[in-house]
């Protein structure tokens, strides 16, 4: 199996993602410059956090037009696994690979802190090493993480169990008080209908070593590796 980490001008969590895959998952991984368009060597690509194109226009809006994104769309359509983290989630939403949009946080602040999310669905390629209801302590670092979508989209996400993570407290209670940014239905991460594209605002790649305050993020990457191993790639 092989992982790729896409690098846009302004990405700044690319090295963290690379480190996690190479050190903690123990699999080969490459950086993919945003002008590259050949993803044929990869089984999973990570769109990392950061400030691609300086967040100009809207967060993720300009990255979506980078040459690599047309390839990411084809890659996803062929069943390749795509994990978008923070700015990566914003890019996937702008590109139409995930529904909805991420707007300015409810209280306007840039939030940089450890929060808790509850695993809402453990039957996905990204969470199969976790248990439904597990609470993960993972950092968020964003100004535009407030997930919005229309009523029909929300109903579809709920019905199809595509809400993968919700903001909660340390006991797993999901309330408005545990919603750091005003996201609809406390949504912290969603997947597409085919379940091979996941976008999440929290940073699991920054929560893979106890030294950094938490290693709860590791199981997300391990789940993906287990999925790929089971598919013998």
């Amino acid at each position, binding site marked *: 199996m092989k992982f790729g980490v896409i690098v846009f001008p302004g990405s700044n969590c690319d090295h963290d993602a690379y480190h996690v895959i190479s050190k903690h998952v123990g699999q080969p991984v490459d950086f993919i410059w945003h002008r590259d368009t050949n993803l044929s060597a990869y089984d999973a690509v990570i769109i990392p956090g950061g400030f691609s194109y300086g967040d100009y*226009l*809207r967060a993720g*809006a300009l990255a979506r*037009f980078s040459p690599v994104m047309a390839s990411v769309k084809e890659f996803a359509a062929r069943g390749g696994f795509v994990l978008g983290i923070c700015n990566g989630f914003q890019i996937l*939403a*702008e590109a139409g690979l995930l*529904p*909805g*949009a991420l*707007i*300015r*946080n*409810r*209280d*306007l602040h840039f939030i940089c802190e450890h929060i808790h999310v509850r695993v809402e669905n453990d039957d996905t390629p990204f969470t199969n090493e976790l248990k439904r209801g597990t609470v993960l302590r993972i950092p968020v670092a964003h100004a535009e993480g*407030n997930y*919005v*979508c*229309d009523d029909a989209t929300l109903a579809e996400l709920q019905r199809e169990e595509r809400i993968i993570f919700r903001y909660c407290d340390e006991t797993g209670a999901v309330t408005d008080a545990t919603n750091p940014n*005003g996201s609809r239905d406390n949504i912290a991460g969603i997947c597409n209908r085919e379940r091979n594209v996941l976008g999440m605002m929290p940073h699991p790649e920054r929560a893979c070593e106890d030294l950094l305050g938490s290693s709860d993020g590791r199981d997300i990457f391990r789940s993906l590796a287990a999925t790929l191993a089971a598919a013998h790639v």
Partner: protein
Amino acid sequence: MKAKVYVTLKPGVLDPQGKAIQHSVELLGYGGIADVRQGKYFEIALDGALQESEARETATRMAREVLSNPVIEDFRVEIER
């Protein structure tokens, strides 16, 4: 020729920046403000040889594909000779 594109949040989409601006101007003593919504404004200089209809079509396509996010925003295009 110039295309002016106004991008605004759809009604119903929360605008925390607009709310903060409203709060600030009210603190300054401005009264009678029911709501403030923040949007974006773009000026695009276009080739003067274009027909107005072509200019409008180009600007509209740009607004739809790039300048706005149709999930959360509406836009309006004006063409100025």
